[in-house]
């Protein structure tokens, strides 16, 4: 009995904080998503209407929501594998016994992660400038016509993906590098004695050993990439033609620009459900392969 009280009182400070700053706001937001809370309701609660599932139904009918969802999925489906592939590639290179100046490259490749996005965006906007950008000048040297990277609705999302991948891959790279260094050398030695080549070592030793870390990194990256917002916000403002407009951007616009908190909450919960479902699917896939 005494032990139980002691236990709860040790847990209480944390529970109160979690309850007050997480559970309660989430519950309120959930309740808000069934109302039309907006600017008028802020003025007087008499102007608040309970609308049931209308926010959700309207969202599912709105072309803009589907467009935002499509853009977000485009970003996730292309961005996550690219990002993890690049992280893995960089980690393998850095871990290779042939690598020189390892510490320098590790820092250099990690630098984008800790650089302020807004500063990065200014540089990237110039790099990808249609007329003055180095990217187009490089392409011109190869005889390729200039591409309107940020102004053409077909190219804007690939440019954003490039930016996000470049900005973020260093983080996963460091985690994967640590995991690589933890793989016992004996495994490689015995593989070599059995006559395995470099490729076979990679496929049969390195990747299986990395399995749990890879699946963790994938799930975290995917959940992060679903919350695409800052990159289009600073690079394109969601344009051109809403081609870089994401679900979270939609929520920001509804909630903080137009103060439609009811609709914004509904978007937040739809996104939450989506991320939950996608993470669950990925986790099951990883388990079925024995990776987690």
């Amino acid at each position, binding site marked *: 009995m005494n032990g139980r009280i002691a236990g709860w009182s040790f847990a209480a400070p944390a529970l109160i904080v979690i309850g007050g700053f997480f559970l309660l706001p989430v519950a309120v937001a959930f309740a808000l998503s069934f109302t039309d809370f907006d600017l008028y309701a802020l*003025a007087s609660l008499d102007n608040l209407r309970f609308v049931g599932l209308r926010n959700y139904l309207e969202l599912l009918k709105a072309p803009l929501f589907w467009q935002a969802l499509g853009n977000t999925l485009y970003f996730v489906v292309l961005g996550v594998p690219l990002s993890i592939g690049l992280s893995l590639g960089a980690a393998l290179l850095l871990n290779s016994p042939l690598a020189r100046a390892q510490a320098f490259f590790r820092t250099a490749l990690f630098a984008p992660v800790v650089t302020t996005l807004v500063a990065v965006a200014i540089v990237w*906007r110039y790099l990808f400038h249609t007329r*003055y950008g180095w990217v187009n000048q490089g392409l011109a040297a190869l005889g390729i016509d200039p591409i309107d990277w940020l102004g053409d609705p077909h190219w804007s999302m690939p440019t954003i993906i490039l930016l996000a991948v470049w900005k973020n891959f260093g983080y996963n790279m460091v985690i994967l590098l640590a995991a690589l260094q933890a793989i016992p050398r004996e495994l490689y030695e015995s593989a070599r004695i059995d006559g395995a080549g470099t490729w076979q070592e990679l496929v049969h030793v390195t990747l299986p050993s990395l399995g749990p870390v890879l699946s963790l990194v994938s799930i975290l990256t995917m959940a992060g990439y679903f919350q695409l917002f800052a990159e289009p916000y600073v690079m394109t403002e969601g344009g051109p033609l809403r081609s870089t407009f994401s679900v979270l951007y939609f929520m920001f616009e509804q909630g903080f*620009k137009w103060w439609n908190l009811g609709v914004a909450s509904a978007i937040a919960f739809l996104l939450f459900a989506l991320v939950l479902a996608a993470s669950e699917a990925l986790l099951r896939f990883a388990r079925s392969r024995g990776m987690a």
Partner: protein
Amino acid sequence: MSRLAGWLRALAIAGALLATACADRGDKPVELRFWLMGREAEVVSQLLPEFERRNPGIRVAIQQLPWTAAHEKLLTAFAGDALPDLCQLGNTWVPELAELGALEPLDSRVASSREIRRDDYFAGIWDTNRIDGVLRGIPWYVDTRLIYYRQDILAQAGFDHAPRSWDEWAREMRAVKAHVGPARYAILFPLNEFEPLLALSLQGDNTLLADGGRTADFHDPAFTRALAFYVDAFRNRWAPEMSNTQVSNVWTEFGRGFFSFYVSGPWNIAEFRKRLPPERQRDWMTAPLPGPHGPGASNAGGSSLVVIAGSRHKDAAWKLIEYLSQPAVQERFHALTGDLPPRRSTWALKSLVADPYASAFRDQLERVRPTPAVPEWERIANEMQLVAEQVVRGAIPIGEAPAELDRRVDAMLEKRRWMLDRKRP
């Protein structure tokens, strides 16, 4: 338990004492909390010592908000009951805060004021502060859009004056485009800015919203005509399909002649003076916005000064507004910021008369029109621009745009209609 009650009682008494003490101390200077945005906040402190000298009982505490965060800060402050005593407010936000009940009505104060005379203000700009017939703010500076143009390029293309009508403007843009060739353009209409199209669509007796802001009115011929003119500029390749983020630096590009016409506001006078090289300074000029058949109207933007309804120092706040509205103070303010004064008597002062770039604005201010005074306006204007961008980029046929826009805006106004209908008996 009884000890807690005793503590609470003591606390309540102490609180009451403190409150009476605060109310009674008439000799203690009143501290006015004044919120401003952007550059204005930086320079207004230079105007305040004089005010504090004339009003020894009042101290002014300034807080600067960045423009990009100001809107949400104001609403958050309203929700948290933390608004200041007076505030600079973009005049399209006045309806919103008036709707919230956050703004003090000013009609009776103006009626008895010797300083602020209604007929001295440009009518269009004054009217942006009247919400449902009640005055909620005093115009502080004006922001309207007109054209900046390159005199030298226009002369090379064969024209010696700025356009005065849309036909003439189109002829000049055609000639400029033919002169500068495929890599450069005649005009820049940034696709992420609603202001140029908005200014073009104010050229009739249309109001963009109908029935007291209950329904959209974008099928009005004045709007469809403006949209056609706007879209034509892109179809003819007089304007590049670009947003501001792609241009990167509009001032440099204007200096390089990437475009020769630019629809923008008064702050760019100072920017072009500062950023264009000396040898370019004689090449640019401002001109009033052309209308379909002659001098056109433009939007009545800018900032107002408002007194917050919950303030305990409304009289002192009003004194500060009167002080900042004096022509001599406005002249200094103009010299510090380049912001355009809203009073005719300030414009009659020497430094403003002598400014060649400002005179087009003086002319334009006689023809400014307010945009609909509804809280949803900013969102509606944004939607208008999104549809215009879709038309320009070929995602929506121009013929369908007005109906599409009406549909989207009507949906945004649903709540407003419900509220207004409920107020009616």
